[in-house]
């Protein structure tokens, strides 16, 4: 009994924080690998509809985006659905110019492979969507993608 006497009261040792930088670096590398730099600030509400028959867009560099939906800042811009091209609101008539710009920004070879991705809020009415599609047809941008979220079927 005398051999195993506790040598005085010892405090619980403080938790070592030496591994904290390692954990943070791991998190950092995770985000660096799985994310892409945001290109534009989306100013419209953009909850996408869901669909099951979807495909992944292969080359991100060959995709141009058109956002449509009710503006996030209701007080300033109202509740009517708007189109956003690049960083600002635009009207339907500006779509042809936008397509030409996007085409010029890319190589000759890639021009035919450009896909226009339509990120449209699910509550938008088809009137606006069909106007966008008409302008895209007139501008010659035939390959389009209706951006959706994946429908998860519960078995």
């Amino acid at each position, binding site marked *: 009994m005398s051999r195993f006497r506790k040598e005085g009261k010892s405090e619980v040792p403080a938790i070592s924080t030496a591994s904290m930088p390692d954990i943070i670096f791991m998190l950092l590398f995770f985000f660096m690998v799985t994310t892409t730099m945001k290109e534009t600030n989306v100013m419209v509400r953009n909850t996408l509809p869901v*669909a099951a028959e979807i495909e992944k867009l292969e080359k991100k560099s060959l995709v141009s985006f058109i956002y449509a939906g009710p503006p996030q800042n209701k007080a300033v811009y109202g509740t009517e659905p708007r189109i956003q091209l690049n960083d600002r609101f635009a009207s339907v008539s500006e779509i042809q110019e936008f397509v030409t710009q996007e085409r010029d920004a890319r190589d000759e070879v890639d021009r035919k492979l450009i896909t226009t991705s339509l990120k449209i809020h699910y509550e938008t009415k088809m009137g606006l969507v069909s106007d966008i599609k008409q302008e895209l047809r007139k501008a010659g941008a035939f390959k*389009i993608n209706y951006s959706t979220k994946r429908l998860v079927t519960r078995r």
Partner: protein
Amino acid sequence: MARKTPEVNAGSMADIAFLMLIFFLVTTTMDVDIGIIRQLSPPPPKDAPIPDINKRNIMTILVNSQDALMINGKPADINTLKADVKDFMSIHPDDPAYPVIETKSFEFLGEIQVSKGIISLKSLRGTSYEMYIKIQDQIAGAFTELRNDLAMQKFGKKQDKLVDPNLVDAINKAIKLSVSEAEPEDIGGK
């Protein structure tokens, strides 16, 4: 004679890591770009004649501003749309209620029967985009099932399990997505 150099204080390494993490959290998105890919048709020239299509080859899908569905003039349900489209586009030999069937030959597949059916989709300006996407999704689902059936029949495997891309292409060519969309009308306003 190596002097013992003082250890670099590693306490600030965590701060640097936090700063970089917050930078990346703020400036990046985890957007996965997925969706339904479609090919639009070129705008028709002003004086193009309206092509004459046999009525039995067309399945008319109408959606109104209340998102109510109508197939060939009869009210229909979105949940049965995929089955209805698949049934319409399947091969029903010698049945006048279904589209005309023709025999074509394809590489890797040989002679197969293809349906000349066309799905005609018309929505009003007041239809919601969500309903439109649901319909597109159901139609695409029907065609995928038809393609899987053909792949199963010819190669014993579903189309997404086929290894040879030539076979996948051949099936896609044999069963083409034949959807025709009309300009939305403005009946009943938004």
